[in-house]
């Protein structure tokens, strides 16, 4: 760890708060790993109809995001889907 890291380091209290916020969102959503896997497979199936995606590095998780309507955060499903090739789209 360099000297600069010492200054950048977050307080452990804030780290705990941030970790808990994320953890509780997924706890409260009550999504089992099996269910997340099913969602992931369905997403792959749907997107694959239109484009060639990298199924191995596809990553989904439940997180939170700023709400547009009220001042606060709401749960969100975050999906990172790397596209390998757009050729399917061009065929349409």
């Amino acid at each position: 760890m360099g000297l600069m890291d010492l200054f950048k380091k977050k307080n452990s209290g804030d780290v705990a708060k941030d970790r808990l916020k994320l953890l509780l969102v997924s706890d409260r959503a009550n999504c089992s790993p099996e269910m997340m896997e099913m969602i992931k497979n369905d997403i792959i199936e749907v997107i694959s109809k239109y484009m060639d995606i990298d199924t191995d590095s596809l990553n989904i998780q439940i997180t939170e995001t700023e709400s547009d309507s009220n001042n606060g955060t709401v749960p969100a499903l975050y999906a990172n889907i790397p596209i390998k090739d757009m050729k399917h789209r061009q065929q349409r």
Partner: protein
Amino acid sequence: MSEVIVITSGKGGVGKTTTTANVGTGLAQLNKKVIMIDTDIGLRNLDVVMGLENRIVYNLVDVIEGKCRIKQALIKDKKYQDLCLLPSAQTRDKDSVTPEQMVALIEELRQDFDYILLDCPAGIEQGFKNAIAGADRALVVTTPEVSAIRDADRIIGLLESNEMKKIDLVVNRVRMDMVKRGDMMKVADVCDILAVNLIGAVPDDEQIVISTNQGEPLVGSSCPAGQAYANISRRIAGEEVPFLDLEEKQGVFSKLKGLFSKN
């Protein structure tokens, strides 16, 4: 009107029993008739924290099974006439009692007491279900730690789905020196994350260990934890009590030092 309060936490070792003993004693100091029921069957502890372990003849399971009358199993506190303990059974298991039996027992006790406190076991299994079955409101105890807060959140979810009417939070073992350094979550942050009403924060206090050693709850004494528990008891009884400033009391010398260091 009697009120039935379950003291619960999910995680073990965060201070449920200590909170039950001190809030029970605190309410008795306000001249309320109080009964504390230890619902942790197989791992009883409230009796030792209250210093009443030598007086146990009958227990909760004996009452439920009809082996004795309720009055025979109740143990009167050493100091307060209107404070009683119904101890748990040490050599039985949690399935000896059903939620329906607990509700029936509580309904019978409502006539004689202002407050019925239920010390809930850790976990979310049968013992938890028994303890919450007859309760009107819940005190959820947590510490400012990730694991305890996560479990408290789960417990709050379960209490809400069981239609618990009122849920209040006790944040226990707060260390202001660590909060100031940023190495412990603030009480406000904990409330924010759990989204429930705060009824009191209890500072980490070595007097708690001493009082448990002696079997005498410290509520009402001059130490920080004693004050915090007295305030929680008054809030439960319906009084408006301002929250304690948990900052450590400074001596004249350190105050002076503080003055100089600001400039």
